[in-house]
């Protein structure tokens, strides 16, 4: 079965046969979740770890006035709540945006992986640190980046993250989210989000039609966004300090 988890975690560790076997055992038949369904609500104490296999989910915070801030997009291969077994109650919610295929991994399985498989443990650490790095980049963007560059930056990020798990074709990918959801992640109004998408389209840089995204000029998008992929840590740390980039972000 297609295993986006191994695909993603392989960036961080060279897995052995037995590591791969352990990670494949985790991948049972996924269950389907309809769009816009809560996976976990604020205050829940989930017993299982959720892994996205297909579709897109989000982490979100609901403000007292009902407005929503999306604080992360969860793509195939992403854990929703890897360390929730350590923390008590959820301090935020997780919901599907599109139809999703998810796998529930019992806590005990995660404990077994981290106790018995050092390379997997290292890779899980890596995944958690990258999640944090992405969050830092979003905070910096919301605080300091102009809205037009912020949206371009997000599309560069999503393109590379989806490419990592084999979900892009050329420079096209499926992004089954609405403009409202995009706006909720960027901290801007929906009219503003639409205006900037129109602008990128007019300039022949990128087209989003419905859920289909086609980056027409990745180099131009990257330059406009002032995007550097460093924070995604797609380069393996090596002993001599020269990283090996696993996923190229080079334009054609």
């Amino acid at each position, binding site marked *: 079965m297609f295993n986006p988890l191994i695909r993603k975690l392989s960036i961080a560790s060279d897995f052995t046969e037995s590591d791969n076997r352990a990670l494949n055992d985790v991948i049972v038949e996924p269950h389907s979740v309809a769009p816009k369904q809560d996976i976990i609500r604020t205050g829940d104490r989930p017993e299982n770890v959720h892994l996205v296999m297909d579709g897109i989910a989000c982490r979100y915070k609901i403000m007292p006035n009902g407005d929503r801030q999306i604080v992360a997009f969860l793509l195939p291969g992403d854990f929703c709540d890897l360390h929730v077994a350590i923390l008590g109650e959820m301090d935020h919610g997780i919901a599907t945006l599109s139809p999703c295929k998810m796998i529930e991994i019992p806590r005990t399985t995660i404990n077994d992986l981290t106790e018995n498989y050092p390379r997997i443990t290292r890779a899980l650490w890596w995944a958690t640190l990258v999640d944090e790095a992405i969050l830092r980049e979003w905070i910096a963007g919301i605080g300091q980046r*102009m809205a037009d560059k912020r949206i371009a930056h997000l599309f560069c990020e999503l393109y590379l993250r989806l490419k990592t798990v084999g979900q892009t074709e050329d420079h096209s990918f499926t992004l089954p989210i609405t403009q409202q959801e995009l706006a909720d992640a960027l901290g801007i109004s929906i009219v503003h989000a639409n205006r900037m998408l129109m602008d990128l389209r007019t300039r022949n840089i990128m087209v989003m039609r419905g859920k289909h995204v086609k980056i027409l000029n990745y180099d131009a998008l990257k330059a406009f966004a002032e995007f550097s992929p460093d924070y995604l840590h797609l380069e393996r740390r090596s002993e001599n300090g020269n990283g090996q980039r696993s996923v190229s972000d080079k334009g054609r």
Partner: protein
Amino acid sequence: MPRYFFDVEDANEFIRDEDGHICESDAQVRKAAIEALPGMIGMRIPDGDTHKTTVKVRDEAGAYIYSASLTLEAGWIGKRSQ
């Protein structure tokens, strides 16, 4: 549910909304148009002393039904010697 299109006039630029989005009520149309303005006008420091941004809302038949604009006016007070 009706779909509305939010065109934007920003200084000399006109950006036509080809996608539109669903609004459940007139109040929602008004809110969407107005709340978009401060963010757009705050995007960059204008070249001159005034900068006007307008959101014009079209209905599905193509008729403009609502307009909201925000004008930024700036200028030195009194004479400034260079």
